[in-house]
């Protein structure tokens, strides 16, 4: 941790001549977050401090350098036992001696989140390094995004950077071809992506093909030698399409991806959504999501389903879900909202009242309550407890 902070200071010192010449901007934010949960009779609290330090500069006419470092510290309940959130019959299926392994730790960290250089040539842009890769038009779920999984309760939160070599070739004003290579141990395991973006009437559309290695962990089989759960690495080939535009005055979007898996069953994901802003400023949206990796009968949810969901190996545990969101600016500084997430597959649902307040030009407060209503064993079951989050972010 101290070594990381020293590295960050060293990087800033090295860049200080450029900072002095105002070629590099230094900015970022500090974020304090409180997360609380009441699970059965237990109450837990986790406090997080995050400092994000960004630098961005125009090194030459056509060369941009950008990077950010995140420093994270956690306090309070820093080890979350996943088994506490699961139904008794799933927990009882796990041998007693393995039960201590199902823990998600929150560890203090300092990480070079993004660091890339972008060359802007006349016919194309080339971006090299650790960078954001945002794919798809979905708001909460993105079937074509094989790099990131969003948190449905916080879908606009920034995602981690990914090592990649990316080329964007503009083909006229409204069409772009994108080639991306994200290196792993060798060529075979590395991710290759090809995307074409076009425009038709008031619709943007994307056609995408990806080859990526995918890891499914078997959380029922523990390898004592490697001290980790056994995992299967397999090739995932995905073809997808997405679009966003306007229909009958509504904002609409759709996204579809079919995945051919080398070893496990093929699956597809589908998203369709719509939004609208009323004249009285209330914004409403709905997004439907189907993922055939998820199950349509909650009695079939097993330990692997839950753990893969919590470990972000798959985006949903149930097959069909609906996300609905309404937000209204109560005053010019305060927005109140309500999210409803419903699993059509098992009938469970959660309500999430949200609050966004602008405390000053560079200080904002975001918070939500997460209240589950489903029966035990379902995607949004009461037995998973209820939670609250409050986050204060100060930009500089």
């Amino acid at each position, binding site marked *: 941790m101290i070594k990381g902070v020293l590295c960050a200071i060293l990087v800033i010192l090295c860049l200080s001549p450029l900072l002095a010449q105002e070629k590099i901007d230094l*900015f970022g*934010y500090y974020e304090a977050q409180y997360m609380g949960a009441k699970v059965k009779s237990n109450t837990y609290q986790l406090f997080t401090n995050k400092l994000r330090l960004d630098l961005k500069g125009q090194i030459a006419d056509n060369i941009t350098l950008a990077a950010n470092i995140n420093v994270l510290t956690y306090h309070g309940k820093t080890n979350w036992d996943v088994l506490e959130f699961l139904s008794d019959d799933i927990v009882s299926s796990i041998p007693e001696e393995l039960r201590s392994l199902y823990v998600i730790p929150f560890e203090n960290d300092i990480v070079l989140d993004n660091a890339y250089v972008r060359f*802007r040539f006349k016919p194309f*842009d080339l971006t090299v390094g650790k*960078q*954001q*890769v*945002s794919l798809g*038009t979905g708001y909460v779920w993105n079937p074509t995004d094989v790099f990131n999984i969003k948190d449905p309760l916080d879908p*606009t939160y*920034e*995602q981690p950077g990914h090592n990649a070599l990316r080329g*964007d070739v*503009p083909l006229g*004003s*409204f069409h*772009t071809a994108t080639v991306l290579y994200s290196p792993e141990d060798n060529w075979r395991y590395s991710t290759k992506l090809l995307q074409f*973006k076009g425009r038709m009437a*008031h619709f*943007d559309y994307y056609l995408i093909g990806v080859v990526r290695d995918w890891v499914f962990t078997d959380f029922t089989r523990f390898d004592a030698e490697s001290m980790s759960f056994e995992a299967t690495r397999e090739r995932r080939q995905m073809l997808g399409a997405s679009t*966003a*535009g*306007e229909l009958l*005055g*509504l*904002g*609409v*979007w759709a996204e579809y991806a079919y995945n051919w898996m080398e070893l496990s069953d093929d699956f597809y994901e589908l998203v369709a959504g719509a*939004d*609208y*802003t*009323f*004249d009285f*400023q209330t*914004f409403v949206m709905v997004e439907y999501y189907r993922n055939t990796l998820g199950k349509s009968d909650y009695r079939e949810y097993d330990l692997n389903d839950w753990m893969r969901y919590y470990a972000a190996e798959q985006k949903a545990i149930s097959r069909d879900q609906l996300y609905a969101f309404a937000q209204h*600016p109560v*005053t*010019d*500084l305060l927005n109140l909202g309500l999210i409803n997430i419903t699993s059509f597959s098992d009938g469970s649902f959660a309500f999430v009242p949200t609050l966004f307040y*602008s405390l*000053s*030009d*560079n200080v*904002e407060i975001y918070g939500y309550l997460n209240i589950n209503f489903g029966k035990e064993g379902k995607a949004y079951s009461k037995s998973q407890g209820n939670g609250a989050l409050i986050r204060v972010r100060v*930009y*500089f």
Partner: protein
Amino acid sequence: MITVSAFFLAGWLYCQELTGDEIIHKVNDTINMETSHTKSMMTIVTTSGSERTFTMETWSKGKGEKNLVRYLEPSRVKGQAVLMLNNADDIWMFFPRTQRVRKLATHAKKQKMQGSDFSYEDMGSGDAFIEDYDAQRLEDEMREGHDCFKLELTRKEGSDMSYSRLILWVIKDNFVPVIIDYYDDGDPSRLEKQLVQSDIRIIDGIPVAMKAVMFNKNDNTQTAMEFLEVKFNVELADSLFTERALKK
């Protein structure tokens, strides 16, 4: 003396003869230059009396048909950018921290711009005065110390603009609208917002209101927009109004 009197008489007769349609075309030509590049500051005065200030850089082409707005300050929104094409019928928004570009539907034009009393529609609707409204000239009036044409603009059938009608007071000397009243979408008798423009200067031979204040009659708030720098008829490539430039 006779020549001067004849000149003023001709000017007076000219003003008398102008129809509502002709006046609104002249207003449109005055406020929408072929190209422009501006830096402006937006100050929101909230209901509690506190202020929020934003600075932004705007490029505009094709008499407001294409607009690119990039926020410079505060840090919270720095780098965020909005691209509006086809008189804001197509809107894209860029979020620098996620490098994500999101296509917005036209209903998003109704949303407040960064919580201000200006909507995206107010900021980038190009020649909406002509395309979306029918103009009718009313009796001339003095407003804010200026001799003004008074116009009523009524929304055309099928238009998706948010205001049912507008009343404009246009300075006769330079065709700058000094006041615009915006009326409710569903109730044409209810005043929703009022824009008051002031500090008119001649820049590159063009009269420009350097300050505009939008008063929100529903929320009792106001937002001031002030030009810090203005350049007209600058060379702007079409490539500036693309997703590639949006992400720059």
